[in-house]
């Protein structure tokens, strides 16, 4: 299991990196943490002829506030750094909760926030979480820059709107609204495995304690992050009673998601789990929202 040959470049600035991507186009692949790409290369399922290593661009690794109380995260911020960052814990607790669920400690030391998102694995926690939090992604190429909302960024299995010559350089996470609560629930065979299914939930309450808005985003439930719009619709304006939550959970599991089958779980089992986890996640998020 040895990777095939490739040309290697180690740019030290974003500009250099973008120039290389522009030059090599489709044959080139940016190398961030490499914790998903390199296994695929070792199996020779991925055979990029050019690797543009982003690990020598220190400027891409940071976490700080933005002017409206949200966060700006550099694409090369490593999971381990995000996991232990006080700002994240305070302002993006859902991300903080997701971190220990990503891979293993060693993987988190190399894997990067932007790399995980660009890889667009439907089983990745951050993919679902970024959508649940209404994240925005800053993409740049030599042609210029654009901001893309998370829910428009992911277009399919391992596929995003990123053009071959384009890089995800920064992620913006807006602040959670007042009186909102969150939860991330998943079921995995072993602690570190890809979740059989998982759900990120964010609910916000209005002044009289009814659900103002609910966001339910599933992982491992389709070819990308799957947002449960119909279930969310059921909750809008409702008091979050056990009955309302159960109805939403059933709707999400039966109507919103279209999970596949694999050796670890049939689509049917995934729907069952989705129902259970949605109920638990909504209760959890609701409790947090009330607590605030």
């Amino acid at each position, binding site marked *: *299991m*040895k990777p095939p*040959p490739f040309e290697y470049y180690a740019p030290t600035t974003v500009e250099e990196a973008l120039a290389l991507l522009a030059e090599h186009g489709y044959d080139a692949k940016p190398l961030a943490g490499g914790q998903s790409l390199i296994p695929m290369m070792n199996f020779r399922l991925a055979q990029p002829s050019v690797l543009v290593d982003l690990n020598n661009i220190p400027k891409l690794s940071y976490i700080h506030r933005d002017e409206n109380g949200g966060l700006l995260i550099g694409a090369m911020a490593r999971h381990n750094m995000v996991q232990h960052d006080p700002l994240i814990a305070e302002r993006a607790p859902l991300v903080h909760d997701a971190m220990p669920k990503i891979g293993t400690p060693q993987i988190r030391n190399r894997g990067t926030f932007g790399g995980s998102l660009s890889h667009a694995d439907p089983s990745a926690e951050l993919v679902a979480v970024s959508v649940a939090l209404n994240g925005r992604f800053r993409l740049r190429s030599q042609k210029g820059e654009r901001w893309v909302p998370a829910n428009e960024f992911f277009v399919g299995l391992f596929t995003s709107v990123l053009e071959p010559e384009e890089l995800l350089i920064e992620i913006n996470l807006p602040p959670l609204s007042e009186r909102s609560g969150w939860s991330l629930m998943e079921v995995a065979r*072993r*602690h570190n495995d890809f979740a*059989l299914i998982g759900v990120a939930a964010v609910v916000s309450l209005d002044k009289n304690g009814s659900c103002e808005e609910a966001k339910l985003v599933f992982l491992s439930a389709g070819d990308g992050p799957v947002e449960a719009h119909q279930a969310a619709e059921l909750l809008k304006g409702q008091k979050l009673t056990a009955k309302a939550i159960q109805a939403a959970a059933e709707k999400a599991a039966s109507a919103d998601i279209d999970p596949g089958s694999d*050796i670890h779980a049939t689509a049917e*089992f995934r729907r069952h789990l989705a129902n259970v986890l949605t109920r638990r996640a909504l209760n959890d998020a609701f409790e947090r929202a009330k607590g605030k």
Partner: protein
Amino acid sequence: MTKQFIGKRIKRNEDPRLLTGQALFVDDVEIPGMLHAAFLRSDYAHARISSIDVSAARERPGVVAVYTAEDMGDDWEPGPPLVSPPPTLQGVTFHSRRQAPLVRDKVRHAGETVAVVIAESRYIAEDAVEDISVEYDPLPVVVDLGKALEPDSPLVHDDLDSNLAAHLYQQKGNYEAAKAQADVVIKKRFYLDRGAAAALENRGIVAHWDEKGKQLIIWDTTQAPIAIRNGTATRLGLSENQVRVIAPFIGGGFGPKMMMFYPEEMLIPWVSMKLCRPVKWIEDRRENFYATTSEREQIHDVEMALTKEGRILGIKDDFLHDTGAFDPYGLTLPLNTQCHLMGGYDIENFSSNCSAVFTNKPIVTPVRGAGRQQGIYVIERMVDFAAKELAIDPLEIRKKNFIPPDAFPYNNVIVDQAFATLILDSGNYMPIYEKAVEMIGYEQFVKEEQPRLRAEGKHVGIAITPFIETTGVGPYEGARVQIEASGKVYVTTGYGTQGQGHYTSFAQIVSEQLGVAVSGVRIITGDTAEFHWGTGTFASRGAVVAGNAVHAAASAVRQKVLKLASKVLATPEDELELEDGKVRMANIPHTSVSLGELAALANPLRGAVEPGTEPGLEATDYFGPQYGAAAFGTHAMIMEVDPETMMIEIKRYIAVEDCGRVLNPMIVEGQLHGGVSMGIGNAYYEKLHFDENGQILNASLADYLTVTAYEMPPRIEIGHGETLSPLNKLGTKGVGEAGAIPVPALFAQALENALLDYDLEILETPLSPNRLFELLYKS
């Protein structure tokens, strides 16, 4: 007699090297000019090869050679049978079909070796493998064990008229007569599926043919270096003494590294001789799932006849055993299964037909537990169902049927893997079983805790499973013990080691005899240049067979020491004692002579060695047990299940083991911990998923789920019993496989008990969350 070294928790001699990265593993061998091999393996499980084109591969820079079966010419021949069928069994059918170094005509399982590339680096070799193009004519595939014997099934081996690899029938008493008198007869069908051994170290081999010295040195991750040496010499037309096989430190064996000859083991030495260059092949993880053997698929149709009081009158079990595409390992596994189908119970009537079946799946040979886990699963499940049917307490029905202590040695009548009638040498089962019951706090749990937890809506179950393990079978092992003039003690044996702590437990045996520090005893295992004779590391036989060989040799050296010392100190032997590397007079300890001095005296430079004596303080001896030693144990667990997510949590785990005399409790406990972790994998996590084409769908450690620290119980609480084996001087029994044997049966019991309100009936292993979901919500 009180022991000074045996039975003590002594730190392992091998550890400092392992802990500092100084231990030699096969892939650590570097030789100047060494070449690297990579294999082209068949993607298809069953197909004819119509053409192979290796021209592009041969032209790639850095490639030294590419071989297909054709290129081997007359040197091409299948591997030898590893174990022949038992001669003592009447009317046994056995069709021996063995794997070849490279496939010539027809591929019989995915991953079979089709061509090998030899290149300057493994990287280039893998590039060149992609240059090879093979035309296959795919054939219908035999995957489903249950269908493989149907008349219209495709044939794995065209020269046979069915996929039957072997059939054997064994009986004891008269089951049908017993059934006629029975109050109840219970019938069940069980499905047991396949798992991998998945040792952390994949297989590997380095072969170095020295053209000038006419010597072939092989480093091999094998559990049987002696047999590999002998077989290789025969295959390559060399004398055994021209071949040196070294099984250095090995990253876990668990059975499959006992299998021989793997195609790579036949091929790599041959290539090294062809090219007169050292050649290394290291199996990668994906290859490991296809190319290394695996085990456990069987289908059992079982009947149990009982009295209404719960006395077991008889068992009838006709089962199918998947042997994969070839059967080099003979009938060891089905025989082990049959030997354990009566568990630790006194059952007078038994009848069992076993059909071993060829399928287009990788070869099946023993994996830790080796057929025993299946036998114990079947008998223990049946006893559980009997208890339920008869409304008898599951503990009581077991106690009612245990072989009583005065019945040992107990003749089980049927033939075991050693081709001899299975005799359970010794045992006292009840105290072990009751110890487990007590340690888990059964009474208190079922009377108080469980009802309370159930009231809280928790699904928590308890299980207690007894089991036997036949261990320590022959034929023999040997050892040489030598005291050097330096005072150091040097011990060699042909027995290979894969982490079981032999460098320490064997040293303890020697120290006991010679009164030297365990750390001062240097052990060499698994190097055929150091010791010529031996069999291999299997059947939990290290401490029993090799251990007693070491003991015999050490005792002989002790006699030589005493004889010489009594001359030197002018004192009768019985007034001497061996202590701290010296021989001293019991009554005046300061008068002593060191072992080193004695060793020097035993190898005089002048004078004459007395006729009839040998120079040096050295002895070689062997041990072959009359028959195997039978260990017994009982495991217990408390498990919580979330019936919504199917996630489980093991709250408590108890393992009580009677493996005869314990040489080093620390090592024995370690063996049990590891066995249990593998058993937990077998029960709920580990399964090789084959699709209808014989493709393995989880040939990676991301999808083949060995347990991590998270899936283990908080701790495994261990209890010991000690019924010495009368068959060997040390009184030891094997324990290496014990931990894994009862776990799937234990799991099934715990799940049924935890999910009482679902009236679950578990008839299969391994389970998984998805399968449990189906059982709970689809029935």
